[in-house]
C-alpha cells in the first residue's frame, strides 16, 4: 500500500484561504503535539479494527519471509542439486499458497485499516455536529459557514489516512524489520549486521532532516493555501478588478505569485526530498553491500547458496516498511493540517442553552419572564445589561430600538439560542436552563429576520420537523402567509423542490414561506423578528393582517423595525444599548413622541417610501 505511493506535493488542507499566523517555533511544536493528541484521541474507537489491520500486515510480513525462503530453496535445488521442479511440488505449492495468502492479507489489512478510519470519522463527525448544536445560532453567526462545512466534510475525511495508513505503517516500520532481522541472523550474521548497522541511521536521518523540513513544510502548506486563496480571491474580485482596469495587471500578479511559489517550494522540496534520498541511499547501498559480501563468500566457499539467496531476497523487505512509513508521514501531516480546523471548531464556545429534563409545565399558554438578564460575549461585547420584563400569557410585546440595542439578543435568549451570562429566563415560571428544550420549542412558532430555506420540497420546508405533514394544514398555512398564488404557479405545487438558499423563490417569497411555517405550527408562543421587512407593499398588508390573526390569543414577542408591526402590540419595550429605557402601550409612546426620531432611528423613513408617497 503505502510503499507504492508517490511523494506528493502536499495538497492544501482545504479552506479557500488560511492565512499564515505569526508564531514562535515553540508554539508550533506544542500546537502540533496538541493536534497529534487530538487525532490519537480516537484510537479507542478504532482499536479492534486497527488490531485486525495490524495482524493482517504482520501476516503479510511473515508470508514475505516464507516466500523468500521457498524461492531460495527451489532455485538452490535447481542450480546446485540439479533437481527437477517436479520433485519439489510441495514447496512450489506452498509458494503459490503463500502468494495467494499474501494477496488476501494485503487486502485485508487495507480493508480493516479503512474500517478503523471509518469508525473514527463517524465518531469525529458526530462529535463535531453535536458541538455545532451546542454552539447555537448566535455563536455560529460569527463563523464562516464555508470554512465550517469544509472542516466537517473534507476535514473529517483527511483524518482517514492517518488511521488507515499512518498508524499501521508506524507500527509495522518497527515490527517487520525486526522480523526480517530475526529471520536473517541465523542464516547469515554478516548481512544481519549490515542491516542492523544501517537501520538506526535511517530513523535518525529521517528525524534530523524531517524536523527541519516539517517546520518549513508547515509554512509551505500555508503558502500553498495562500496561493490557491490568491487565485480564488482574484476570481471573486474580478468585477471589481475590471471596474478598476486592473484585471490585466492581476494576470501578471497571478503568474508572479505562482512562480514565486514554485521557487520557494522547490527550495523547500530540495531539502525535504533529501530525507527520503538518505533512506534510499542506505537501503540501496546496503543491498549492494550484502550482494557483494555474499558473492565473495560464495566464491570462496565460505557460505552456501541457499542462505545467500534467501538473505538477498529479504534485504529489500527490511527497508520497505520504513519507506512506507516515509510516505505515510504525509498522511499524518495532512491530518494534522485538518485537525487544526477541527480543533478550532471544537473550541468554539458553546453559547446555546442546553436545557434540562423538566417538561414544560402549565396550560397551553406561555408566559415569559426575564430576571435581571445580562448577556456578554466571550469577546467582551455586552449585548444586554440587566434586562427584566414579563410577558403574560396571551400578551404581545414589541421590542424597538436602534441596531445593536439588544432586540435580537432578547429573542435569542427567549428561544434558547444563547445562555444568559447572568440572570434568568423563565418560561411559565421555570428557568429555561432546567426545562426540556425540545418540549419548549415544540410550542414556539418563529420567523427569523433572514429565514433559511432547506434543500427539499416546499412542504418539507413549511413543516421541517415532520415526517408526514398534514396536507390540509399545509394548504391553510400557505394561504395564510399569502403564498397561495406562488404555490399554484409552481409546476409541482407543494411538492416542488426549493434548493439551497431558496433557489427559485425571491427573498420576499422566502420570507412568506417562513411565515407559513409559523402558521403551520400555530404554537402558543409566536416569536417574530422583523416579520414583514422583505415584503412588497400589497402583500405586507395581507401578511400583517394574517400575523395579527396568528398573534391573537397567543403570546407574542416581536422585534419591530417597522411601525406597522408595533401598532398591533399590547406593549412596547424601547431598548437602547442593551437596556430597556422605557416601555408602554403604542398609543402612550406615540403620544409622548418616543417613537419618532432619535431613539428609534430604524423606524425613520427611507427613500423607498418616496415612491409610495408619490
Amino acid at each position, binding site marked *: 500500500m503505502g510503499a507504492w505511493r508517490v511523494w506528493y506535493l502536499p495538497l492544501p488542507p482545504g479552506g479557500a484561504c488560511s492565512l499564515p499566523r505569526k508564531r514562535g517555533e515553540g508554539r508550533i511544536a506544542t500546537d502540533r503535539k496538541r493536534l497529534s493528541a487530538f487525532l490519537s484521541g480516537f484510537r479507542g474507537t478504532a482499536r479492534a479494527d486497527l488490531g485486525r489491520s495490524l495482524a493482517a500486515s504482520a501476516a503479510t510480513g511473515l508470508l514475505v519471509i516464507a516466500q523468500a525462503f521457498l524461492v531460495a530453496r527451489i532455485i538452490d535445488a535447481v542450480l546446485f542439486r540439479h533437481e527437477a521442479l517436479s520433485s519439489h511440488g510441495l514447496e512450489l505449492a506452498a509458494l503459490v499458497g503463500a502468494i495467494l495468502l*499474501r494477496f488476501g492479507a494485503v487486502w485485508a489489512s487495507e480493508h480493516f485499516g479503512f474500517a478503523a478510519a471509518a469508525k473514527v470519522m463517524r465518531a469525529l463527525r458526530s462529535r463535531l455536529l453535536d458541538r455545532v448544536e451546542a454552539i447555537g445560532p448566535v455563536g455560529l453567526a460569527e463563523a464562516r459557514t464555508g470554512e465550517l462545512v469544509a472542516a466537517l466534510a473534507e476535514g473529517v475525511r483527511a483524518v482517514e489516512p492517518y488511521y488507515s495508513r499512518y498508524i499501521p505503517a508506524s507500527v509495522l516500520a518497527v515490527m517487520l524489520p525486526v522480523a526480517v532481522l530475526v529471520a536473517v541472523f541465523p542464516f547469515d550474521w554478516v548481512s544481519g549486521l549490515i542491516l542492523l548497522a544501517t537501520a538506526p541511521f535511517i530513523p535518525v536521518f529521517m528525524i534530523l532532516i524531517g524536523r527541519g523540513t516539517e517546520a518549513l513544510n508547515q509554512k509551505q502548506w500555508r503558502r500553498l493555501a495562500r496561493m490557491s486563496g490568491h487565485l480564488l480571491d482574484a476570481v471573486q474580485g474580478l468585477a471589481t478588478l475590471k471596474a478598476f482596469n486592473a484585471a490585466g495587471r492581476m494576470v501578471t500578479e497571478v503568474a508572479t505569485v505562482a512562480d514565486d511559489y514554485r521557487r520557494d517550494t522547490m527550495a523547500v522540496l530540495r531539502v525535504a526530498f533529501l530525507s527520503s534520498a538518505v533512506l534510499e541511499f542506505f537501503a540501496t*547501498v546496503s543491498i549492494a553491500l550484502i550482494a557483494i559480501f555474499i*558473492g565473495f563468500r560464495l566464491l570462496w566457499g565460505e557460505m552456501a547458496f541457499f542462505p545467500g539467496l534467501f538473505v538477498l531476497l529479504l534485504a529489500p523487505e527490511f527497508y520497505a516498511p520504513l519507506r512506507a512509513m516515509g510516505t505515510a508521514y504525509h498522511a499524518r501531516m495532512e491530518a494534522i493540517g485538518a485537525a487544526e480546523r477541527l480543533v478550532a471548531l471544537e473550541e468554539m464556545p458553546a453559547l446555546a442553552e442546553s436545557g434540562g429534563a423538566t417538561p414544560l409545565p402549565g396550560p397551553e399558554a406561555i408566559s415569559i419572564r426575564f430576571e435581571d438578564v445580562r448577556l456578554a460575549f466571550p469577546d467582551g461585547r455586552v449585548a444586554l445589561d440587566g434586562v427584566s420584563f414579563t410577558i403574560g400569557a396571551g400578551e404581545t410585546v414589541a421590542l424597538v430600538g436602534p441596531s445593536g440595542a439588544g432586540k*435580537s439578543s432578547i429573542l435569542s435568549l427567549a428561544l434558547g439560542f444563547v445562555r444568559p451570562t447572568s440572570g434568568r429566563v423563565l418560561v411559565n415560571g421555570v428557568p429555561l436552563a432546567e426545562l426540556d428544550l425540545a418540549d419548549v420549542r415544540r410550542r414556539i412558532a418563529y420567523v427569523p429576520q433572514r429565514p433559511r430555506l432547506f434543500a427539499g420540497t416546499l412542504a418539507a420546508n413549511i413543516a421541517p420537523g415532520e415526517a408526514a405533514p398534514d396536507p390540509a394544514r399545509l394548504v391553510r398555512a400557505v394561504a395564510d402567509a399569502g403564498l397561495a398564488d406562488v404555490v399554484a404557479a409552481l409546476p409541482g405545487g407543494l411538492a416542488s423542490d426549493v434548493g*439551497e438558499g431558496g433557489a427559485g423563490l425571491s*427573498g420576499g417569497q422566502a420570507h412568506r414561506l417562513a411565515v407559513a411555517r409559523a402558521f403551520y405550527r400555530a404554537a402558543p408562543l409566536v416569536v417574530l423578528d422583523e416579520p414583514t421587512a422583505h415584503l412588497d407593499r400589497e402583500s405586507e398588508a395581507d401578511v400583517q393582517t394574517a400575523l395579527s390573526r396568528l398573534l391573537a390569543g397567543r403570546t407574542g414577542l416581536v422585534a419591530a423595525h417597522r411601525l406597522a408591526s408595533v401598532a398591533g402590540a399590547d406593549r412596547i419595550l424601547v431598548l437602547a444599548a442593551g437596556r430597556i429605557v422605557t416601555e408602554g402601550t403604542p398609543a402612550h409612546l406615540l403620544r409622548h413622541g418616543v417613537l419618532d426620531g432619535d431613539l428609534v432611528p430604524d423606524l425613520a423613513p427611507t427613500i423607498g417610501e*418616496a415612491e409610495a*408617497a408619490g
Partner: protein
Amino acid sequence: MKDALRLLRLMAPHAGWMGLAVLVSALATLAHIALMATSGWFIAAMALAGAAGASVNYFTPSAAIRAYAVVRTVGRYGERIVGHEATLKFVAALRPWFFARLIPLAPAALEDQRSGDLLARLKGDIDRLEFAFLRILSPGLAAVLVLAAGLTVLALHDGGMAVGIGLAALLAGLGLPLLVHRLGARASREVTAGTAQLNALLVDHLEGRAELDIYDPDRRHRAALDETSDTLIAREHRLAGILGFAGAGVGLFAQSSLVLVLLIGAPRVLAGTLPGADLPMLALLALSLFEAVAPLPLAFQTLPATLASARRIFDLIDRPPPVKEPAAPKPVPEAGTLAFAHAGLTYPGASGPALTDIDLALAPGRRIGVVGSSGSGKSSLVALALRFRAPAPGEVTFAGSSIADFNSDDLRRRMAVLAQHDHLFAATIRENLLVADPDASPEKLEAALECAGVLTFVAAQPEGLDTFLGANGAKVSGGQARRLGLARALLKEAPLLILDEPTEGLDGETERDVLEGVLGAARDQALLFITHRRAGLEAMDEIIVMDGGRIVARGAPGDMLAIVGPGTMGPGTIGSETISGGIPEDTARSAGSGQGLEQAPP
C-alpha cells in the same frame, strides 16, 4: 478524449521538463531493477564458480552493482525534484492562463453559479489538473518505458517468459485499473453524489441552526445528516476496498511472474539451455519490474475525476462572453455625457425585465441620485454603464457614441465605481487601494481615506496602511469595508463617479460625514449616486425614483424630498399602509462576506 487532448496541449509547452521527469523516473526504476537482477545473477555466478573452482570476472558485475545503486539513489531524488519542477512550472502557467480566460466572462457569465459553489469547485478542479502530470501522466509513461526495456531483456533470454510476464504486467497495469473502474463506478458516483448531499445538509445544519432548533425538536435533520454521512463513509470504504484489491492484485501478478520464471526457467537450466546464474537474475527482474506497474491503479483511479475537472474548467472558459468587444474600437473621448436611451435589460432565465425603458443623461459635472427599494433595478444600471451587460432593447452612449463601439476596458477608464458587491482583496489596505491607482503616493492614499471618513480608523491600526484585511475584508466591519471601498473609488481619476449604496452599513451621523467628504472630493466629477436612503440627496441636481425596473418619478431634489419630508413619520401615519422599505438591521453584515450566518448577533 477531447478534454484529455486539450489538457495535453496545455501541458505541451512544458514537454521538455515533463519528458525529463519521465526519463529520470524510468531511469531510477530501471536502475533498481538492474540492481536486483544483477545482484541475483552475481551471487549465483559466484556460487557456481566457487562450487566449480572456476575463476570468474567479478569486477564488472560488482562495479555495475555499485553503479546501479548510485544511479538509483540519485535517480529517485532527481525524479522527485524534476517532476515537481515540471508540475510547478505547469501550475505557474496554468493559473494565469485560466484567470485571463475568466476576465471577459466576469461578472455576467459567471453569475448563474453561486459564488461559493463555483469557487469551491474551481479550487478542486484546478488542483486536480495541476497534479494530472505528477499523478497520472508521469507514472503512466515511465511504466511504459520501464516495461519496454525490462521485457526486451527478458525476451533476449526467453520469448515465452517475456510474453507471459508482459501479459501479467498488462493485466496488472491496465486490466486491474479497468476492473477497479468497473467495480468502483457505482460507488464512485455514489460518493460524488453523497458528498454533494452531505455538503448541502451541512450547510443547512449550520445556516439553518435557528430554524432547526425551533422547528425540528426531534432532530430529524440531524438523523438524515448522520445517515448520509454513514452511507458516504460506507461507500468510501467500498471504494478503498476495491483499490486495496487492485493494490494487492499488482503484488499477486508480480509474484506470479516469479513463479512463471521458475516454471519456464528451471527445466531450461536443467536442460542446459539457460545459464544457471540467469535463473535468479530473471526471477528478480520479473519481480522488480512490477515496481513500475504499482502506481498505475491509483493513477487510473484519479483519471476520471481529473477528466471531469478538465471538462468543467473548459466548459467554464468556453462560455460565450456576455458582451462582444468591437473589432475596431473607437477611441474613447476624455469626457462626455453618459446616456441611457430607452435602455432595457432582461436577465437570462428571468421571467420579466430587470430594467425597462430607462432614459437618463449624466452630463459632465452633473449629479444624479437614483433611489428605490432593493430589487428596483438600480444596480442593473451600473452593470449597463460598465458594459458588464449589454442593453436590449435600447442603448447606452458615451459622448454620443454607443458604448458598444468602444473597447470596454478603455470605456471603464472613464469611470470610477463603488459597486454594490465591491470586493476587498485578501491583502493589505494599501494593496487594496493601489488597485485603483498603482502609482498613487501615500499622501494621495491618505487623502482618499480621509474623504471616505476612514483615515482615523486606518491610522489607529498598529500596521496602518499595511494592515491585512483578511478574506473579503473579514477583519474589518461592514461599515469600514464599505468606506475602504469608497476610498478606493475616489482614488481613481475618472470624469464619471458611480456610487452604488456607498453608505450601506453606516449609522446616520457617520453617513452624513462620509457623504459630505465624498461629495466634496468629487466636486469635478459627474456623479451617479444610487441609494435607498435620504442622506446626500439634497446635493443632487436631479433625483430619479425607480420601481420595478422603471423610472417612476424624477425631478429636482427640492420637489422630490418634499414628498418624503420629515412629517411623513408623524403619528398620523402610524400603521399606514403606504410605508414600505426599511433598513434591515444587519445591512453591515450582508455587505460583508455573505458567507456568515444570517442571524445577526445583537
